[in-house]
């Protein structure tokens, strides 16, 4: 689905590795019955190859693509560096649900509480960059962990949460560096299109997934 941040992870890896692929978008507000045969949980992203093998859970799809396809490796070969990327991924784990809660908030009182929680989580990531003294989360060049966490940072501007990174300068610099990456910039969605999608999605509109087409 064009606006799903989890699916965006997979699309980023496909693009970064130059893997030939086709996309079938699923209307998440009106799922086709056959889709549950692809993933019993009915969620995107799902990968399907010519052997009929199905892989789901976004992080698992990304790792599968990195292992299966040649070209630039996004995950490091060194076991400890690889483990570090996965530990950073765990540190990030509360962010997606916080951002979704923020999107779904019913009133402005919830706003500050959620922002505070988000600041706390973003601070953890700032600490990683501070300790590592590198631009990206895996070192001085962009790697898997950066792609895995990027989609939610793309949303910050549209959700008017950019001030959440005012106190995390390294994270702010990382966001700017990410926007320069060819795969990231190729997959950027125009803020007003994203906003249009959010509006319709919050109203449970079955047209949401096709907004802007």
């Amino acid at each position: 689905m064009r606006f799903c941040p989890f699916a965006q992870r997979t699309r980023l890896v496909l693009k970064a590795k130059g893997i030939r692929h086709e996309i079938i978008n699923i209307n998440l507000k009106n799922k086709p019955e056959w889709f549950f045969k692809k993933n019993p949980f009915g969620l995107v992203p799902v990968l399907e190859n010519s052997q009929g093998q199905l892989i789901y859970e976004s992080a698992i799809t990304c790792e599968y693509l990195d292992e299966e396809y040649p070209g630039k490796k996004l995950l490091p070969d060194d076991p400890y560096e690889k483990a570090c990327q996965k530990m950073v991924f765990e540190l990030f784990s509360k962010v997606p649900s916080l951002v979704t809660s923020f999107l779904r908030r019913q009133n402005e009182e919830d706003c500050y509480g959620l922002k505070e929680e988000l600041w706390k989580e973003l601070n953890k990531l700032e600490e990683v960059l501070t300790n590592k003294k590198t631009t990206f989360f895996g070192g001085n060049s962009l790697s898997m962990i950066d792609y895995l966490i990027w989609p939610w940072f793309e949303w910050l501007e549209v959700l008017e949460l950019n001030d959440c990174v005012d106190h995390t300068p390294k994270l702010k610099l990382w966001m700017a560096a990410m926007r320069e990456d060819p795969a990231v910039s190729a997959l950027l969605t125009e803020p007003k299109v994203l906003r249009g999608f959010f509006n319709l999605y919050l109203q449970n509109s079955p047209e949401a997934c096709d907004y802007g087409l």
Partner: protein
Amino acid sequence: MEDATRALGKGTLPPGPVPEGLIRVYSMRFCPYAHRTRLVLRAKGIRHEVININLRNKPEWYYTKHPFGQIPVLENSKCQLIYESVIACEYLDDAYPGRKLYPYDPYERARQKMLLELFYKILGYQNTIFFGGDCISMIDYLFWPWFERLDVYGIADCLNHTPALRLWTAAMKQDPTVCALLIDKNIFLGFLNLYFQNNPDAFDYGLTC
């Protein structure tokens, strides 16, 4: 067993650096998450030492190994720390030679990881006392036999990790049906003992007639 040592608590001295050729795991004898890591260490024949941590009275120095004082944590002679049980297990498989526990094929690796997600979904699926809601229902009965057997060993859960499962087990044992069919621990252990010896009398163990 390498892990049959007393748990270190507040006021203990921090252990020294890990000697070369060895890897250290901070653990607790009854924690299922740490158990995963110890299984992998053993399966791969990795030389290791175990330091047990008193989870109710954590040593101050332990927070330098894990920000929230959780276990398991691996520490090697390069002072590298790896935590989260699944990450630790994968690190050991990658870093050490010998038998690979994860398959080589990328799809088969992905399949194992998808199965693990299913497992977490079962553990995390509860937001009510019972799996189906506030009353016992089919799904609870369908799960129960496996959990009852784990419970017989008394190590069905760890102190802090799965409070929902612990509550569920306690609630299930209050159900009259579950109660009526509860296996006696000694009889079950007696059965298992004979069963593993391929003794045909295993099935009648404990019968008084």
